[in-house]
C-alpha cells in the first residue's frame, strides 16, 4: 500500500518521472549568474588593457577574487549543462557521448585553469 498521495509522488517529476533536475539546476545557476555576470564584466573590463601590476592587484582583492571564482564554478557548470542540452538536441549515438564528454571536460579544464591562476594571484 502506498502512503504517498498521488500528487506527492508526481510532484517535481516531468512526464518521464525524471529529468527536472537538469532544468532546475540551470534555473539556479542562471539566477546566480544574473547577479555575478554584470559585476564580473565590470571588474574584468576595468582590468583588461591595464599593466600586469594593475591586473594582479585587481584580482588579488577578495571581492574580485571571490566573484571570479564563483563565475568560474557556477558559469562553467551552467555552460557544461547548456552545451550538453544542445548536443543532445543535434547529435545521437557515439557522437553524442563523445561531444558531451568533451564539452563537460572542457568546462572543468577552463574552471580549473582559471581557479589555479586566481589562487596564484590572490594568495
Amino acid at each position: 500500500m502506498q502512503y504517498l498521495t498521488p500528487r506527492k509522488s508526481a510532484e517535481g517529476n516531468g512526464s518521464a518521472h525524471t529529468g527536472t533536475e537538469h532544468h532546475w539546476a540551470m534555473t539556479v545557476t542562471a539566477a546566480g549568474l544574473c547577479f555575478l555576470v554584470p559585476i564580473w564584466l565590470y571588474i574584468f573590463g576595468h582590468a583588461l588593457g591595464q599593466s600586469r601590476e594593475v591586473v594582479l592587484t585587481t584580482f588579488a582583492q577578495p571581492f574580485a577574487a571571490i566573484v571570479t571564482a564563483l563565475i568560474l564554478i557556477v558559469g562553467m557548470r551552467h555552460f557544461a549543462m547548456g552545451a550538453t542540452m544542445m548536443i543532445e538536441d543535434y547529435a545521437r549515438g557515439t557522437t553524442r557521448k563523445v561531444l558531451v564528454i568533451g564539452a563537460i571536460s572542457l568546462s572543468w579544464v577552463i574552471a580549473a585553469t582559471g581557479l589555479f591562476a586566481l589562487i596564484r594571484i590572490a594568495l
Partner: protein
Amino acid sequence: MADAKRAAPNQRPLSPHLQIYRPQLTAITSILTRITGNGVIVGVMLAVWWLLAAATSDEYFAVANGVATSWFGDLVFTGSLWAIWYHLFAGIRHFIFDAGRGMDIPTAEKLGWACIIGSVVMTVITILLVQ
C-alpha cells in the same frame, strides 16, 4: 494498408520545414539564446588564458595581453560581451515564460525586442563604463 504505411514516411515534409518557414522574431530570439550561450565560451577561454598568463610571468602576460588587446581580442571580447548580455536577457525572458507569463504573441514579441535592444544598449554602456 501496410504498403501505404511503408511508403509514406519518406515523402512527408520535415517539421518545421525550414525552407519555406517564415522566420519569426520569437523563433530567432530563441535560437540566438543557444548560439550566444555556447559561443561565449570563446571569450571565456581567451579571458582565462589571459588571467593564467598574468599569474605566470611578465613575458607570458605580454604575449596573452598582446592577443587580448589586439583587433582579434577586441572582436572576440566585444562579440562575447554582446552575447553574454543577450543570453542574460533571454534567460530572464525564460524565467518569465517558466512562470507561465508573457506567452501571448504580442507580449512574446515585445520580450524578443527587449532582448535584442537591451543587449545592444547594455553592450554599449558596458564598453563606455570600463574604458
